[in-house]
């Protein structure tokens, strides 16, 4: 029983990353009709916003300490971060420790600009082109972004830790009447789950309760009519693209302590998130969220040893197997609408 609860919590946590990325993908697809293969790269750029801020905070003054030796036997160059020199060692250290949460503020304007530039500079030229062209150009862009990051940060993952106050685990077991330490879950992963629900709720509220959101929804349903009413829907869709980039970026920032950022992490998520979008139904925002959590939970359960004893290797194929079954039973996905990508 404890195993099942534990894997369920884990599934929701895994699913929150899938849901966040799939949400951004669906936003772009639903508004602009573009299949954005560079979306994973936006997630990766978000994680590197956290790395960059950490690097900025740890920019150091160098002093030579003759009493210590480096690996060649020369006097050791001691590095002290400027923030520690300016704000004192304790305050400076806590600024560095809090670099990941602070990176949320840092990442929002950066991702907005990146999203805006990407849409205006490249993707808008591909609206009228076939989906295959869009996939090729965005996939190419993803590779270019990856290589740029690798050039600056190297190929090795970069440790980016959460603030030490979130280091421990929360004991669910005690709450549910189990023994202590049977069902524990790391604080940071729970924060990630909460963070993702907040972001998802914010995106839905934005689309549902603002005039801007209403126009965007109208544009998603019937772009031509909205255009005929004299509304510049393209401009709004550009903003939606930038917003989707911010969602992907924030998902990346908060993921940095879970999975040390490396240039390839976006690609690892990209295929998965397309599976999520297809299972949820192309163009359906609630479908993407539902499928994200569903696949996260299924993947977690498939990794249970009891399950693997009956179906060896199921953990490695469960997502694709589910996608096949859902597409056979419901060809439009869980919540897909008639007419999307069917013309």
């Amino acid at each position, binding site marked *: 029983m*404890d*195993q099942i609860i*534990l*894997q369920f919590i*884990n*599934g929701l*946590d*895994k699913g929150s*990353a899938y849901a966040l990325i799939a949400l951004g993908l669906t936003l772009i697809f639903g508004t602009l009709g573009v299949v954005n293969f560079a979306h994973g790269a936006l997630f990766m750029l978000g994680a590197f916003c956290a790395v960059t801020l950490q690097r900025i905070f740890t920019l150091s003054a160098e002093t030579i300490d003759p009493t*210590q030796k*480096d*690996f*060649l036997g020369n006097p*050791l160059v001691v590095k002290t971060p400027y923030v520690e020199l300016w704000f004192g060692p304790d305050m400076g250290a806590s600024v560095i420790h809090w670099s990941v949460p602070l990176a949320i503020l840092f990442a929002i304007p950066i991702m907005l600009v990146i999203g805006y530039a990407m849409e205006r500079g490249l993707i808008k030229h591909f609206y009228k082109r076939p989906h295959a062209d869009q996939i090729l150009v965005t996939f190419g862009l993803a590779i270019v972004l990856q290589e740029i990051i*690798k050039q600056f940060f*190297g*190929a*090795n*993952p*970069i*440790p980016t*830790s959460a603030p030490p106050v979130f*280091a*421990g*685990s929360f004991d669910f077991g005690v709450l549910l009447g189990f023994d202590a*330490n*049977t069902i*524990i*879950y*790391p604080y*940071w*992963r729970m924060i990630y789950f909460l963070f993702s629900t907040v972001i998802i709720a914010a995106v839905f509220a934005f689309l549902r309760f603002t005039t801007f959101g209403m126009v965007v929804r109208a544009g998603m349903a019937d772009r031509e009519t909205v255009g005929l009413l004299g509304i510049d829907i393209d401009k709004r869709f550009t903003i939606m693209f930038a917003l989707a980039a911010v969602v992907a970026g924030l998902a990346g920032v908060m993921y940095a*302590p*879970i*999975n*040390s950022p*490396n240039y*390839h*992490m976006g690609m*690892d*998520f990209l295929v998965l998130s397309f599976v999520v979008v297809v299972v949820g139904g192309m163009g359906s925002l609630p479908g993407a969220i539902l499928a994200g959590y569903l696949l996260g939970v299924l*993947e*977690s359960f*498939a*990794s*249970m*040893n009891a399950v*693997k004893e009956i179906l060896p290797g199921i*953990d*490695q194929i469960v997502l694709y197997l589910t996608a096949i079954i859902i597409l056979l039973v419901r060809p439009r996905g869980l919540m897909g609408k008639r007419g999307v990508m069917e013309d």
Partner: protein
Amino acid sequence: MSTSNFTRRGVLKTGAIAGAGVALPTIFTAGSASAFTNEPTGSTVKLGFNVPQSGPYADEGLDELRAQKLAVEHLNGGGDGGMLSTFNSKVLDGTGILGKKVEFVTGDTQTKSDAARASAKSMIEKDGVVMINGGSSSGVAIAVQGLCQEAGVIFMAGLTHSNDTTGKDKKANGFRHFFNAYMSGAALAPVLAKAYGTDRKAYHLTADYTWGWTQEESIASATEAVGWQTVKKVRTPVGAGDFSSYITPVLNSGADVLILNHYGRDMINSITQAVQFGLRDKMVNGKQFEIVVPLYSELMAEGAGEAIKGVYGSMNWNWQLDNPGTKAFVKSFGEKYGRPPSNSAQTCYVQTLLYADAVQRAGSFNPCAVVEALEGFEFDGMGNGPTLYRAADHQCFKDVLVMKGKENPTNQFDILEIVELTPRAQVEYAPDHPMFAGGNLGKCNPGA
């Protein structure tokens, strides 16, 4: 009227001359005196360095390449000579190999077997290399070793730790200086027993490919021999990213040790996440829960950061060793590149020098002569103490380092400490040991 200068006879004549011209090089190379593949005929000899230049191990590949360039520089008499001054075989004198200046070409393995084979093939066929060196994965090493055997060139493996490289997939043209999974187990188990006791229950998470499988087998068997129980062995897909769904079942499995048979990015992620799940703060069976990473590398340790503090593992070599070979190498590498070399850099550097030395001693670049010179070769002064290249399986036998993540590092390179230098005798095994059974070296292939 046509004013063209083309005539039927003219075209035929030109065609015949061009055809003969194109065929000429093949006539010379195929039919003439060449006794083996890519026999160097001019004043230079070309080596092929096949390392990951893109993909997840690109940083490790970069470090290997630094060491290989340094080896070429030293062979050609440049720099301070590095290990040439400490190597006990004194036939290399800085005038290249057999008087020929050493040149090199590089290939990108991408840490994919097919890409590595393609780049090795291109270096052999287009660039005419006589030896391939480098790589940082056993899947790649086994694939390239097979190719070199067929093509008739020597393969001096880089970082490859699977038992199979010199076990069931061994080849006469292939040589491994790096240690293997069996040796890691033999060196680690007694240290683990001493540190954590003999009554322990281990849970393995294993990368699902040749290296992971052989390491899991080796570590499980070595730890069981000191009294540990193996609770569970779980295979994880390579590049899983998030290992949480594999870590949660560990929590209540009754295990009190987690053994991570992961390398590179997988290891960085799995250990970081295991620590996040509070495994190292947990008490199980009345004991402190522990994590072990049987194969360490400097880059992995750097990537895992805080998570590796106090965690045991093993290495082929480390720059902190106190011997003349190590000191000479660290000095020339450190002065040139501003950082200490990694253990994969050291193995590539040593392999390149060992190849050059074998050619020099054999007096020929013929792969069969090189194989003969390397088989059973005993040497010292290369940083690992007295070392034997065993003839039966082309595996080097030398001391193994047991390492631990340092608790209080003083600088960015000071992340691992040497706990024990396990003597060679303790990690030796018979060539027909069951973990290495099933293969056959076969005959050396000179190609051509």
